[in-house]
């Protein structure tokens, strides 16, 4: 009973209700603008709400968190520019849908399934937080390694037939991700003696360049040749039957999303990538091939990255360990308001836990409402003539990459990635694997080396892959995935069918 009361606090208190709504709305806007990240938004609120009541501050911050992760998908779908790393996977099919005139359907679908993913994340947080956090902290370096490698296997499906080029691009991405001081050995890698490179390459800058600037340049072609004008099909709101078709998929990827989000070393971006991969493996009859605007291809990553928020809150509230950069700021907020986030938090302030669950539920409800309401506003972007849209986006890309670190060097990096990305597109080098490498490369590197350092020699290192349950499952999944992507498997399947 008490739990229900605490849970309902944000629903019944008008001020909290308003703050969650305002936060969610602001979050959607912040997330949708390339260069403004959720982390920046929440960090800004931390200093803004310093003198507020704890509940008020948390309500607003949670709103921005959920709204922001969701908002990233808007720009990903409409202009092929992921607003945040966790919406990279949404561009794979979201943008092709938009190019085929289905922007409205893509926006609607992602809103509905972001909501479902978010709610599932919150439910898991509410009912299974201690259990999930146990799994999360028992996730060893080998498991992170396998997870990152599974993500890297996506290269195969992102290369669109040009496998060698795709793998090469992923390799180049990994190397870019490793630039800078080596956090394990202490030396510096690929810095060419430059101090600027010591800090590594900011991967949001890379995304802004490779997706944003490169896409602007590529689109110029249409302006130059006065080619096709963007089309916008009239779409009715999807029917319930149509939506129900995707429910099982969204449930599966949401559970995956919660678990990955709960890991201290992996977050929404990896959840979204693996969610996309899962959709691709399991979708029996996608409306179109993946990468060309499959509905499953936008639903899965969005459900996964929103459910990862609930996941990220789990280690924060049960153990005081942040699951990502945003929850690290929440830790600061709790400390500032005199609480001690740690294993005793739930015991000592159970009301807080349920209030957070309540606010998160509310944020998801507002996300659904606002998300659907603003579809018609966002959709106009597609109909804006390219001659006006492209220069404005170019400015946002430039200012956005500057704003990340207040650094002009970052802007030049973004331009560099932009021109490289453009030529890659021209010469049919897939760009997505490069980004995949930048995101996953460092994780593969550190987890591999830590796992190796923790074992005695190569033999012991390899045995480690089969002697713990989580690792064994991941190893099997990993090899199964490799196996299923090769020709042998397809041939075998065809033979079996004939029999």
């Amino acid at each position, binding site marked *: 009973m008490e739990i229900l009361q605490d849970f309902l606090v944000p629903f019944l208190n008008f001020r909290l209700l308003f703050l969650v709504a305002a936060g969610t709305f602001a979050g959607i806007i912040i997330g949708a603008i390339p260069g403004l990240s959720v982390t920046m938004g929440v*960090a800004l609120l*931390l*200093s803004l709400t*310093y003198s507020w009541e704890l509940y008020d501050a948390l309500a607003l911050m949670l709103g921005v968190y959920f709204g922001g992760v969701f908002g990233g998908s808007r720009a990903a779908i409409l202009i092929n520019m992921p607003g945040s790393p966790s919406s990279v996977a949404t561009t794979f099919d979201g943008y092709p849908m938009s190019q085929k005139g289905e922007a409205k359907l893509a926006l609607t679908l992602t809103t509905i399934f972001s909501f479902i993913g978010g709610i599932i994340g919150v439910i898991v947080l509410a009912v299974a937080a201690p259990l999930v956090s146990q799994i999360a*902290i*028992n*996730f*060893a*370096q080998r498991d992170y390694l396998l997870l990152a490698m599974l993500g890297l296997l996506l290269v195969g499906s992102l290369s669109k037939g040009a496998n060698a080029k795709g793998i090469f691009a992923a390799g180049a991405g990994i190397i870019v991700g490793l630039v*800078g*001081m*080596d*956090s*394990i050995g*202490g030396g510096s890698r690929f810095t060419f003696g430059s*101090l*600027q490179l*010591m*800090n*590594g390459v900011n991967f949001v800058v890379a995304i802004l360049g490779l997706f944003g600037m490169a896409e602007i340049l590529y689109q110029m072609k249409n302006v130059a040749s006065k080619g096709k004008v963007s089309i916008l099909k009239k779409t009715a709101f999807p029917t319930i039957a149509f939506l129900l078709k995707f429910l099982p998929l969204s449930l599966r990827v949401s559970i995956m999303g919660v678990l990955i989000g709960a890991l*201290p*070393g992996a977050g929404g971006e990896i959840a979204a990538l693996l969610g996309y991969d899962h959709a691709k493996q399991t979708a029996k009859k996608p409306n179109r091939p993946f990468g060309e605007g499959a509905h499953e291809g936008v639903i899965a990553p969005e459900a996964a990255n929103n459910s990862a928020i609930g996941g990220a809150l789990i280690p924060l509230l049960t*153990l*005081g*360990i*942040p699951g990502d*950069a945003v929850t*690290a*700021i929440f*830790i*600061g907020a709790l*400390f*500032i308001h*005199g609480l*001690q986030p*740690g*294993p*005793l938090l739930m015991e000592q302030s159970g009301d807080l836990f349920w209030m957070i669950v309540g606010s998160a539920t509310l944020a998801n409800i507002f996300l659904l409402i606002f998300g659907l309401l603003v579809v018609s506003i966002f959709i106009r972007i597609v109909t804006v003539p390219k001659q006006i849209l492209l220069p404005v986006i170019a400015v946002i890309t430039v200012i956005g990459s500057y704003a990340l670190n*207040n650094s002009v060097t970052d802007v030049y990096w973004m331009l560099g990635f932009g021109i490289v990305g453009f030529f890659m597109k021209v010469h049919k080098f897939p760009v997505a694997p490069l980004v995949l490498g930048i995101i996953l490369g460092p994780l593969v590197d550190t987890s591999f080396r*830590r796992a190796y*350092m*923790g074992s*005695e020699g190569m033999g012991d290192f390899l045995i480690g892959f089969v002697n713990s349950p989580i690792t064994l499952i991941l190893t099997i999944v990993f090899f199964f995935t490799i196996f299923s992507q090769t020709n042998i498997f397809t041939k075998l399947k065809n033979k079996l069918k004939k029999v």
Partner: protein
Amino acid sequence: MKKNILIIIIIFVLAACGSETENADGQVDNEDVTSSYPEKNIDGIIMWGEGGATDIIGRTLAPIVEDEIGSSLVMQNKAGAAGAIATQYVYDQSADGYTLLFGAENPNLYQVLDISERSYQEDFVPVSIIANSFAGIIVKEDSPYENLEELVDAAKENPNELIFGTTGEGGLPSVVLAMLQNELKSEFRTVPYEGEGPVSTALLGGEVDVTSVTVSAAQEYVESGDFRMLAVVNDEPIDSLPDVPAITDAYPEIGKYLPWGPFQAVFAHKDTPTGVLEKLTEAFETAIETDEFKETLANLGMEYMNISGQEAIDFVDQNRSTSAWMLYEAGETEKSPEEFNIPKVEEE
């Protein structure tokens, strides 16, 4: 088409010329810099990952300092290479007091460990030493080792069996480890993590057998029963965890290295204008003094220090001498502290 391009180029060139002159007389002298400081956000660079002691202190202190100084303090984590990435980053920014380094004791060892050329002494100036603390040696609650002797004996019997989680070369755990290996002849395998938060997580997950973190970072887990602290690296038990024995109880020979421990401080680039530095020091001093922040320090199990100026410089120097020579004598350093004129602390 050609004509259009020409017009555009002309516009750009004109604009560029116009600005050149603007910039030339836009120079301001030093006094103005001080009186107008701060006129934009101040970046606070935290040298450790989220959730560690440096992170918590920095993020708690930031809003109080913001009120004092009248500008936003934007906190960012730049973890890696025992804090050298953040140290280098702050060093690379202009010395205008808009980028501050929230750091621990680690840069004191960069030179001897050949991690980086940077050092607090030569490249930075302390704004304030906020607090100090002690290192605790911790194991997971289900570990077979009930006290430090058992752990050390096990590490002697089976060298390189037990895994000691560190936070990279020169981090707090690596100095404690040097102490154990040098004085007590125990041998551990090491696996580095990004900071105290991640290494605590690794201990929780059973990935490492033992580690050493600041008492403050481990306190919550010790109270909840997840971790067991075998010893605190000091010559007497500390107030926040009175039940934990001092390391000298079992091994008095460690005593000669003590007192030694981590500290938390804010540094600015060495060439920061004096006026700006004074403003910063004043703001931090007042902020650290607030009951609010003192309460946070108490919660964290850190000892209030709040020193600045020469006193702070001396404190940092003394810490460097102890750590550098200790690691050197343990054969852990790449270079001798003598190369960098680091004085040896005489035994009293």
